[in-house]
């Protein structure tokens, strides 16, 4: 014992204390608790009771579950359509900029640093459905009729995605830019000697070199969009007609919307199911990144 202290065992423990306490109480313990709570009926008053699969049955019996899963999938899909190609094209163009490239990346990244709540409240004003609304005014300049934006079940979801894409695309651009900058110039020299046009070099050198990063951003984006909460919560609250209720909004509603202390069991059951789906995705992500870093 004394030699252990003299060899520094005690001071090592002291240094690890913040990490162990903080992770133990606020990470490891809640993770274990999530698994346990999904098979319990929990409220803030009485002791938890084991109920087996009841929480999962509650979730599956909820008619809103299908809607929420569908909406989340739609959100993820539209987000891919908007948010996947645009940052790539922008980053490829930016990588060819010789002067003031810093200005380009700063401008692209600026929306990412705007606090999300500020961004949503600001875009709510942009989405004013009156003909005098900001976006409708701009559409009017090019002769397009005013849109209902958040007020219609058809346009609400694309409107949310548009804002979310604006807020996140800059981060993706910077990731692509870092990857583009690492493409060995020799490859372009070689392709040029072989007679490849500029477009040919983009197709046969740039894009294959980015393959790894493209897959990673794809998976990261799906992981991110499956957990979308802020936009539907603040823009529409899930409406109109549940057209923007997402899985996370449903979890929140189960647990926190009732003032009586909500259905914590159902909320954890649904979050666990979402987590398993996301864990499969991130396992894929880790496998891919590992195979690339060794290759």
């Amino acid at each position, binding site marked *: 014992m004394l030699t252990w202290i003299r060899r*520094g065992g005690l001071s*090592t423990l002291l*240094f*690890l204390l913040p*990490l162990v306490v903080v*992770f133990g109480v*606020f*990470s490891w*313990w*809640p993770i274990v*608790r*999530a698994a346990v*709570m999904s098979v319990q009926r929990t409220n803030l008053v009485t002791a938890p009771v084991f109920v087996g699969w009841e929480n999962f049955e509650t979730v599956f019996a909820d008619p809103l579950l299908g809607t929420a899963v569908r909406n989340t999938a739609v959100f993820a899909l539209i*987000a891919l359509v908007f*948010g996947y190609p645009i940052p790539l094209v922008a980053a490829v*163009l*930016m990588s060819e900029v010789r002067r003031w490239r810093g200005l*380009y990346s*700063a*401008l*692209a*990244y*600026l*929306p990412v640093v705007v606090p*999300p*709540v*500020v961004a949503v*409240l*600001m*875009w709510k*004003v942009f989405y*004013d459905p009156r003909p005098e609304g*900001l976006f409708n*005014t701009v559409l009017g300049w090019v002769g397009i009729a005013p849109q209902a934006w958040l007020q219609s079940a058809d346009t609400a979801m694309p409107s949310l995605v548009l804002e979310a894409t604006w807020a996140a695309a800059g981060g993706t651009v910077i990731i692509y830019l*870092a*990857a583009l900058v*690492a493409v060995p*110039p020799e490859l*372009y020299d070689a392709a040029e000697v072989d007679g490849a046009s500029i477009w040919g070099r983009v197709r046969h050198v740039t894009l294959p070199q980015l393959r*790894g*990063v493209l897959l*990673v951003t794809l998976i*990261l*984006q799906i*992981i*991110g969009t499956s*957990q979308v*909460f802020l936009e539907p919560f603040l823009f529409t609250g899930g409406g109109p007609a549940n057209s923007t209720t997402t899985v996370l909004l449903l*979890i*929140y509603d189960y*647990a926190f919307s009732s003032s009586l202390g909500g259905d914590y069991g159902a*909320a954890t059951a649904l*979050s666990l199911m*979402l987590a398993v789906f996301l864990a499969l995705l*991130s*396992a894929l*992500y*880790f496998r891919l*990144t590992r195979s*690339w870093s060794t290759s």
Partner: protein
Amino acid sequence: VTTVSPGPVTAPPVPPAPPTDPAPAPRRGRRRRRGGADPGGGRGIVSSAERRLPVTGTLLRLSHAGLLAGLLVVGIGPLLWLVKASLSTTQDTLRDPMALFPSGVDWANLATAWTEVHIDRYFANSMALAVGSWLVQLVVATTGGYALAVLRPRYGPVLYWLVLSTLFVPAVVLLVPLYLTVIDPPLIGVSMIDTFWAVWLPAGANAFNVLLAKRFFDNLPREVFEAARIDGAGPFRVFWSVLLPMSRPILGVISVFAFVAAWKDFLWPLLVLRDPDLQPLSVRLPTLARSIELDVLLAALTISALIPVALFLVFQRTFLRSAGLSGALKG
């Protein structure tokens, strides 16, 4: 796209072996190396010779001008509009949002927002939450990283594995159990609801920070620590006077992540800070939006965006490095 972040898992998952050197820009060196052969200063997809061709060069310049115009509109346009609208009357903003001050500048909005709507108080709360979360994250990441990377106890690898495994657990899972934990925490036994600790402490459980710190400390030359030890410095002295001064770059990255994430966070402070007097801007603004006039709200939004935008403009390099880092794998 925003995800929920109830503290612990705020950063995106990261591969177990990120670039060993957190300093960016592998291209710079490569470019300079090629500098002699190519007077244009290196090349990308388009070669320097092609840049001088009339058609290609013009097209390239046009595309860059178009990109710059687009970036100006999308990147800074909404923010400039926000500043303009916060200095305009509600009527102007509602009647003709794209016009520039048709009935003059209304400076009073900012003052009204700051004093009458008490944005000053929520601003101070945001600041306290961000600074506290930042300190907790720095302490946990540096002490933990130091113990794991330099002191290396025998149980270290197991502990590190436990920390990293939390990266696999999405934030959603923690939401409800973490909330119940904060209501009735083990060890302490007193509810942390409506105290800043409920935000500060969970923020520290960030595996991404520990990973960044440990990786960085791993790559510091061990001889320096040995030398300090031989000179009679104990583990605390080594930590404070040797390790920390050598770790400024990684401390900068962690600080930027920590501060900005805390300033942006919405759902977690909404759950644990129910007393409006304790709520930060992000939580308070949506509620205020329903009750105050539009011009004052927009002024409040401008004030809320000010700090992170200013931080970004000052520490641009660190921000962009962190952004690249969160996705950078193979560089």
